[in-house]
C-alpha cells in the first residue's frame, strides 16, 4: 500500500501520467538517425540545450578519459595554455600510477622472449593488458597521453585473442604504440609495420614472393594512411604487397625479421613511383615513407584525430589546418594535436561527443572510486564486455567505431545506467559523512553540490528541480538531506547525458 502511494506520488511529481508516450517516440525518431557513417557530412545535431560549458572545462573534458572536480581545479590553476602543454607530455618513467600498473600487471612489462616462456598463460596476459589499459585510463594523470595511446591503438588495431597475438600485443602496446604515441607519425607507422602483432594479425608473415598476401597492403593504405578514397588502386595493393614480401617474425627474438629468401626482389611501381629491383627490405621502408608523406595521409589521419577529439563529423576547415600542420611538421603528432586543441572549431564543439564505454567507465571510476588501490579490474571488464568494448577485443582491423551512432543505442545506454546505479549506490564517497561534511542544508543545495562534484557543470533548471523533487518524494526526510537522497540524485546524474557527453 505504501509502495502504491509512493509510486502514484512520484508520478505526480514527475508530471507524467504514463512513463512514456508512443506518438512522441515516433515523432522524435522517424528518420532521426541520418548518420550513415559514410564519410563526412552527417547531420547529427550537436547538443545545444544544456547550459554552456566554459572553454577550459571543455578542453579538460576532451583531453581526458576521466575528469574530477579536483582535476578541473588543477587545470584552472595552471591556465589553459599551461594545462595543454602539461598534457602534451608523455608520462615519466617514475610516475607512481605507472609503477603501480607495472606491479599489478607484471606480464605487461616482460620482454617478448621472457613472455614467450610463459606461453601457458596467454589469457592472463590478455586480461592483464586490458585491465592495465582501463586502470591507466581511469587513474593516470597523463590523461591526454592515454587518450592518444587509445587513438593509435585503434588506428593500428590488433586484437589479442587469436594465435600468438596475446604475446605480440604486449610488445605492440608498450614498444610501438606507447613509445611513439607523441612522436612522429612516420616512425609510428614503421614501428607498426614491423610490430610482430601487426605482422601476424594482417598476415605479413604469410606474404611471400610468388604468391603475395594482400591483407596488410590493403589495410595499410585504407586504414593506416591514405584512407579508402585516398587515391590508390587495386594494382597499388598488389604492388605494395610485393614490397612487403619477406617481412616476418624471428622465431628466436620474437621481433621483426626480414627474410630475404621470401622477398620478391623485382621492380615495383607504387602510387606512380618506381621502386627499383633489388631493394630488399628497403622496398617496404620506401613504401612507408611514400605513404607517411602523402597528402591523403595527412588528411585522413587529421580527420580521424578530429573525429576522436572534436566531433563525429569534424568541419573541413579544421581538418585542413591540421593536415597542413601534419605536412609542415612531417607528421609531428603533438604539433597536430596542438593545432586542433587551439582551433575555434574545437572550442565551438562543446558537448559534441558521446563517451565510448572505455571513457564512460574510466570517468565513472575516477569519480566514484578515487582510491585506485581498490580497483576491481575483472568486475569492470565484465561491464565493458556487456557494453561491447573490452580493450583490444575488436576483431576487424578498423578499430572500435568512433561515432555516437554506433554507441548510443539501447544496449549500451541501459548498461551505462546500470553501472551508474551499481557504482553510485555502493559508493562510499557519497556516504552520510560526506553529505554532512558538504554543509548542504537543502535538497537544491545537495543537487548543486553533486552536480559540481560529478558532472562539473550547471544543470538546466528543470533538471535541478526534477532531481530535488524526486529525492524528496522517493526518500522523504524530516531532518535535512540524507545519504540515500544523495545516492539517488548522484545515480541519476551519472546516468544522464551530463555525464556521458564529453
Amino acid at each position, binding site marked *: 500500500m505504501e509502495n502504491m502511494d509512493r509510486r502514484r506520488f*512520484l508520478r505526480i511529481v514527475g508530471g507524467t501520467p504514463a512513463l512514456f508516450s508512443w506518438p512522441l517516440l515516433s515523432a*522524435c525518431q*522517424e*528518420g532521426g538517425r541520418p548518420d550513415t557513417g559514410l564519410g563526412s557530412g552527417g547531420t547529427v545535431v550537436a547538443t545545444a540545450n544544456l547550459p554552456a560549458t566554459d572553454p577550459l572545462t571543455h578542453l579538460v573534458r576532451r583531453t581526458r578519459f576521466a575528469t574530477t572536480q579536483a582535476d578541473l581545479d588543477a587545470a584552472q590553476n595552471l591556465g589553459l595554455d599551461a594545462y595543454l602543454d602539461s598534457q602534451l607530455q608523455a608520462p615519466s618513467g617514475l610516475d607512481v600510477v605507472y609503477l603501480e600498473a607495472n606491479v599489478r600487471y607484471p606480464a605487461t612489462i616482460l620482454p617478448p622472449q621472457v613472455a614467450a616462456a610463459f606461453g601457458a598463460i596467454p589469457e592472463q596476459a590478455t586480461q592483464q593488458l586490458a585491465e592495465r589499459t582501463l586502470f591507466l585510463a581511469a587513474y593516470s594523470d597523463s590523461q591526454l597521453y592515454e587518450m592518444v595511446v587509445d587513438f593509435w591503438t585503434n588506428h593500428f588495431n590488433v586484437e589479442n585473442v587469436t594465435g600468438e597475438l596475446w604475446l605480440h600485443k604486449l610488445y605492440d602496446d608498450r614498444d610501438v604504440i606507447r613509445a611513439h604515441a607523441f612522436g612522429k607519425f612516420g616512425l609510428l607507422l614503421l614501428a607498426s609495420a614491423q610490430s610482430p602483432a601487426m605482422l601476424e594479425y594482417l598476415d605479413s608473415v604469410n606474404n611471400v614472393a610468388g604468391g603475395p*598476401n594482400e591483407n596488410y597492403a590493403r589495410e595499410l593504405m585504407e586504414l593506416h594512411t591514405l584512407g579508402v578514397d585516398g587515391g590508390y588502386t587495386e594494382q597499388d595493393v598488389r604492388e605494395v604487397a610485393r614490397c612487403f614480401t619477406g617481412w616476418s617474425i624471428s622465431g628466436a627474438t620474437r621481433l621483426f625479421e626480414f627474410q630475404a629468401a621470401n622477398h620478391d626482389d623485382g621492380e615495383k611501381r607504387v602510387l606512380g613511383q618506381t621502386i627499383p629491383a633489388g631493394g630488399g627490405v628497403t622496398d617496404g621502408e620506401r613504401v612507408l615513407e611514400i605513404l607517411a608523406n602523402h597528402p591523403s595521409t595527412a588528411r585522413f589521419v587529421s580527420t580521424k584525430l578530429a573525429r576522436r577529439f572534436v566531433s563525429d563529423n569534424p568541419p573541413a576547415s579544421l581538418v585542413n589546418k591540421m593536415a597542413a600542420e601534419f605536412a609542415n611538421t612531417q607528421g609531428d603528432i603533438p604539433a597536430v594535436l596542438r593545432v586542433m586543441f587551439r582551433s575555434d572549431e574545437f572550442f565551438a564543439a562543446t558537448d559534441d561527443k558521446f563517451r565510448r564505454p572505455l571513457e564512460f567507465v574510466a570517468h565513472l571510476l575516477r569519480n566514484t572510486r578515487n582510491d585506485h588501490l581498490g580497483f576491481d579490474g575483472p568486475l569492470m571488464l565484465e561491464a565493458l564486455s556487456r557494453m561491447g568494448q573490452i580493450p583490444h577485443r575488436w576483431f576487424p582491423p578498423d578499430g572500435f567505431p568512433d561515432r555516437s551512432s554506433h554507441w548510443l*543505442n539501447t544496449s549500451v545506454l541501459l548498461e551505462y*545506467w546500470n553501472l551508474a546505479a551499481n557504482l553510485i549506490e555502493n559508493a562510499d564517497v557519497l556516504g552520510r559523512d560526506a553529505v554532512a561534511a558538504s554543509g548542504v542544508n537543502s535538497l537544491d543545495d545537495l543537487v548543486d553540490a553533486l552536480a559540481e562534484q560529478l558532472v562539473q557543470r550547471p544543470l538546466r533548471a528543470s533538471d535541478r528541480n526534477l*532531481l530535488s523533487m524526486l529525492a524528496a518524494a522517493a526518500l522523504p526526510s524530516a531532518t535535512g538531506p540524507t545519504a540515500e537522497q544523495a545516492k539517488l540524485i548522484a545515480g541519476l546524474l551519472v546516468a544522464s*547525458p551530463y555525464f556521458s557527453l564529453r
Partner: protein
Amino acid sequence: MNNLHKNSSGDPVVVCVFLRGAVDGLNLIVPYGDPEYYNLRPSIAIAPPGESGGLPLPISLPLIGGSGQVALDLDGFFGLHPSLAPLEPLYSAGEFAAVQAAGYPGADRSHFSSQLSMEVAGNGGRAAGGWLGRYLSASAMSRKQVVRGISVGVALDQSLSGASSAIAVADSAGYALHTTSPEAWDIGLPPLHADVGFSFQGVQQQVFAGLELLAQARPADITTDPAATYPGNDLGNRLRQTAQYIKADMGIDVITLNSDGWDHHVSENAVLPGNLASLAQGLDALRTDLGAHWNRTVVVLMSEFGRTVDENASGGTDHGRANMMMVMGGPVNGGRVYGRWPGLAADKLDPTGDLAITTDYRTVLAEILSQHMGLAAADLGHVFPGFAPASTLGIIRR
C-alpha cells in the same frame, strides 16, 4: 505468459545474418562443374561429389580437390561444402536455396565501406538509416507494434538503423534496470534525456519500450527445443535468442545478427570447416527450435563481397567481388541454386579478374520483403532507393 501480442501470430519474420569478413562463397556453394575452379584453387578446392563415399579415389583426390574435402551435390553443377552437411536436408526439403554470383555492384574491396554501403543500401548515396530500418518505417501503418526490430548484439546494425521501432539487445535475459530506486529512475530518466541532442531522447524511449516489452513477453524464459543443439559460441547464443524472440510471438518481425571471422586470407583448409560446421549447426538448431514458426520465417545470409577466384600463397584467398547468398525458411522456394553462373574462365571474369556479379543482392532482399513480408511494391523504391530489380528470382513460394 501474456496474450497481448497473440493477434500477431503467424506474421512473417525475416532474420538477416551478416557474415562479416567476406566469406569465401566459392567454397560454400562449390561450382564443381566449372573445371576452372580446380585450376584456380589447387590446394583449397572442394572435390566434386562422388569422388569418395563408396568410390574412393585416393590418388585423384589430391589432384582435383586439394583440400581433401568433398562437396555434397546440390544440382549437378554446384555442391555444398561438406561442413554444411546439416543444411543438406533443408535443401532436399526445399527450404534452403542459394544464390550464386550475387553482390553489390557498387562494392569496393574494403570490408568496412562495402558492409556499410550494403546495409545502408542507398545505391551509393546517402539514405536515412538502413534497408531494414526503412522497411520498418514503410510498413509502420500496417504493423503498429512499438518494438518490431531487434539487433541481437551490443549495437544496432546499420541495416536496422533509422527506425524508432528497432532496438539492440545483447542479452535478453539481462535486459533490466537494476537500481534501488526504480520508480524514481523511471520518472527521472526521461526528462533528463529530453531535448539534449544526439539521439538521447529517442534511445532512452526505446530502452523503456524494450524493457516493457521484454518484461511482458519474457523471451528469455522460452524453452529451447531439446532437439535443437546450438553451438556453444556467440553465434549459437545469438541464434538461440533469435528463436526465443520469434517463439515468444511478441510482434518482432525483423531480427539481425552477425557472425564474425570470415576473412580467410590464410589457411582456409584449417579454419573454414570449423566455422562452417558451427554455422550449419546453429542454423539447423534454429530450424528445429522454431518448429511451426519456421513456416513464417525467412533467414537470409549475406557477406560484403566474395573472395579472389584463385588461392594465394598462404592457402587463403583475398578480396574479390561476387559471392553467394543463402536463404532458408518454410516460405522459401528452396532446393535450387539461383542466379546465372558467369563462369570462372579468364574471359568470363569481370575486368578485375574476379567472379562477376550476375544478381544484385537487392534483388534477393527485395523479393523477401515484397513476397514474404508483404511490403507493397510502391514502397520498394523507398527501401532500396535507385534500385529496380532487373528480374524476379521466385525464391519465395507463392
